[in-house]
């Protein structure tokens, strides 16, 4: 919780620690481990984006189909909501990628803190 007032002093510390770790012989194992974790989180991100896109299309089709059945206007809402759903799904996927980028660009110290919690 007091990470905010602690952080400025630690920026330099992190950089030095990183350099030290890179020069140590036993660091390769750690690297492999963290790259494995990065791979897993990339797979998760890919799945997330895929589901986001599919959910948009599915939402458009389901809601459009039933709205048409209810209002007796067969393909109008289906087409309209399908297009809107695709656009909205892409928008959600885009927002997710933006959030991911924001999280990746924050210092690693914060991510580590959160994982420990």
């Amino acid at each position: 919780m007091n990470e905010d007032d602690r952080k400025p002093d630690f920026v330099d510390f992190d950089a030095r620690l990183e350099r030290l770790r890179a020069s140590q012989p036993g660091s390769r194992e750690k690297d492999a481990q963290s790259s494995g974790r990065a791979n897993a989180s990339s797979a998760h991100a890919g799945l997330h984006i895929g589901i986001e896109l599919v959910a948009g299309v599915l939402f458009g089709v389901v809601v459009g189909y039933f709205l048409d059945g209810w209002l007796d206007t067969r393909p109008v809402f289906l087409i309209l909501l399908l297009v809107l759903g695709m656009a909205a799904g892409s928008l959600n996927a885009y927002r997710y990628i933006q959030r991911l980028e924001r999280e990746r660009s924050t210092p690693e110290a914060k991510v580590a803190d959160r994982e420990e919690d």
Partner: protein
Amino acid sequence: MAGPLEQFEVKPIMTMVFEPLGLNMSFTNSALFMAVGVGIAAWLFKRGLEGASLVPTRLQSICEMLYEFVRGMVLDNVGKEGLRYLPAIMTLFLFILLGNLIGMIPGTFTYTSHIVVTLFMGVCVIIAVTVIGLARHGTHFLSLFAPSGVPMFIYPLLIPIEIVSYLIRPFSLAMRLAVNMTAGHIMLKTFGGFVIAMGIFGILPFLVAVGLIGLEIIIACLQAYVFAVLSCIYLNDAINLH
């Protein structure tokens, strides 16, 4: 051999049909395991916090870790204002987590693999978020659908897209959870079937299945976390309107 999809079948344990309204309110295996999940959560917190002390017992530290984990999640994603809604997020997280984990025990029923259950939770979240947003910001909440800094002539196209993208949220929440649970369980069942069918070579799919169970337990926890985190993010949109 049982097909890989049979495990998702909802079977009534106690048939109850309310004739006058034609309602089928049977107590099913899905309902049974929901009750088990809620029971475990209630028992854990009742027993764990009974004689709460400064040096926690094992059960108490489980409770404390769960609580602090969810609290940290709400603080990170929503801020201090969100703590008022911590009980709701906590309930959601525990219900999904226990549903996913109970499903990992052979012979049980995974209620979170049904889109009816997950979509209901997703719709509840989105309705709650909308009501909270409207109550806190009034009609100003609707500015969520009209981002600023956009040329006037784009609004007729942009506003419907924004509204639909808001309405999609429960769908993508529900699908993410249900698809992950369903896919994992089908995969486990298929490999389990191979173990028997391949005779002596069944050791190979058996090894794969052992690895898959580990992966499934990770996914079970991860999906509960993802559902709760996304609920927090949607809550954040409603509370901290930009």
